[in-house]
């Protein structure tokens, strides 16, 4: 019903309030999408954008997890990173695109850097929170049974942090995916953002909408997919809460 309403409102606004040129209706955009799909290179563009996002996340995890670990462990580092991590959430996406563009120019590294920069604070924040919530009783159990620090790290600390790090990835995914496309709009020679820019410069409203719709569909699909993976990875949590 929700989606029927969405397309119904869209068709209504397109046909009655505005006109078919200002806002192409769902059918016209659907034909445009078919056109793009028949063109064949769309899969490459999406694949390129997804892999840039993925690499950006890898960087964010590699930097964000240790930063979050330090923040959760020591008051000094919490204060040290506080302003940067908290402030990062309100920095406009365009600034990330600008930074990426200035450092790398037009190339594949820019979007990766932008994704890394925007998602890193989310991950660090979540890891810090996870670490603050580690069950001290489990750590003393570990000591009482003579387990080493390395064993405690592997079996207690890391499993406690992982759900939080993953939630950080999932929560920042929508934002990261948008910034990735934005950075491609500003400076790239491939990817979804580049295609949207291309359609804009060709003054093709239907083209912009078609690419955008595919972009959103993929965002929602991946978001749901991540939620499913998360539920499976951390299935012990559902029982934990139920108990």
């Amino acid at each position, binding site marked *: 019903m929700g989606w029927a*309403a969405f397309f119904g409102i869209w068709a209504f606004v397109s046909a009655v309030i505005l006109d078919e040129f200002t806002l192409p209706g769902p059918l016209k955009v659907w034909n445009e999408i078919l056109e793009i799909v028949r063109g064949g290179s769309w899969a490459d563009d999406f694949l390129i954008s997804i892999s840039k996002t993925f690499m950006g996340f890898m960087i964010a995890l590699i930097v964000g997890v240790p930063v979050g670990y330090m*923040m959760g462990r020591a008051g*000094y580092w919490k*204060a040290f990173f506080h302003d940067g*991590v908290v402030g990062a*959430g309100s920095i*406009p996406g365009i600034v990330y695109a600008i930074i990426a*563009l200035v450092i790398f120019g037009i190339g594949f590294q820019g979007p990766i850097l932008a994704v890394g920069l925007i998602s890193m604070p989310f991950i660090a924040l979540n890891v810090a929170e996870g670490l603050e919530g580690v069950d001290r009783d489990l750590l003393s159990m570990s000591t009482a049974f003579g387990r080493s620090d390395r064993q405690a790290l592997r079996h207690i600390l890391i499993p406690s942090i992982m759900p939080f790090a993953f939630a950080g990835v999932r*929560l920042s995914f929508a934002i990261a995916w948008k910034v990735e496309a934005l950075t491609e709009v500003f400076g790239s020679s491939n990817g979804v953002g580049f295609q*949207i820019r291309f359609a804009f410069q060709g003054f093709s409203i239907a083209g912009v909408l078609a690419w955008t719709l595919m972009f959103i569909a993929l965002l929602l699909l991946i978001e749901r997919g991540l939620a499913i993976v998360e539920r499976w990875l951390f299935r012990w949590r559902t029982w934990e809460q139920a108990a």
Partner: protein
Amino acid sequence: MSAATMSRQPGFANSSIGRALRSSWGARVTSYFAFVVAWQIVGASFFRVPTPWETLDFIWREVSGGDHGGVRPGQFWEHFSATVPRFAIGISVAFVIGVVVGLLIGSFSFVRALLSDVLLVFLALPAIIWAFLTVMWFGLGWEAPVYTVILSAAPFVAVNVAQGVRAVSPELRRMSDAFGVPRNRRIRSMLLPAITGYLFTGLRFAVIIGWNAVLLAEWFGAVDGVGWRARLWYDAARYKGFVGWAIIFIVFIFLLDGLVLSPLQRRAFRWRASPSSDLKAEVGAVDTESFTNTAIGL
């Protein structure tokens, strides 16, 4: 010399400077210092990246109307005063629309079923798309920035207001029924306090998202304004101008957020005993479950 090497010297660690450096204020100051140093290093290694000093010099010339070493003088205020009204009008309209839609969605399950997926798509739409569409619709001028702000920010206000309405627990409603509390007192003592915090959270999102939106729309579809000015320096390949403006964008939103919005939001939520974590409470944005859950679950 860093704090670590200094504190190794006997006596120093306990001196007042050593203690100040290890305090949380010391940590903050050190972090800003480290940021500038890191920037300096990046600036020295990438030829396009200006150093902190060059950037600061640029910002000063731009703000004071000084000479940039060419034909163009600094023009901060005229662009700033072009952007702020667009931003303010856009945010105000977005807020009003968002509150009305949010109240409707939160109060009537029929409206919620009808609009939740529409809202989901609006939330997922990047601001750049609105910027492109409005530029194609209205051409270059004031319209594209204003409409981009409205279209990007309103959905986030709506989501938060709807959540606020739904946060009034059914138990409290039933309690009010049981005591026969009159309607206006119900709205004043139950609904309003419950949604005030969410209203401010929504406003804060709207401001952060709207600021990004106005910059993007001006970049691609205006003939003045701060976004347009930043683009001018980019097109002229004068990267210190470009980075200087990025810094101004950040400073503006930090001041607005830190001095006005965050305190308001915290004040409105002060009846909440303990937020899930003090860090997260400050960011606010992270505290929403997942993106789709927020939109669909409302």
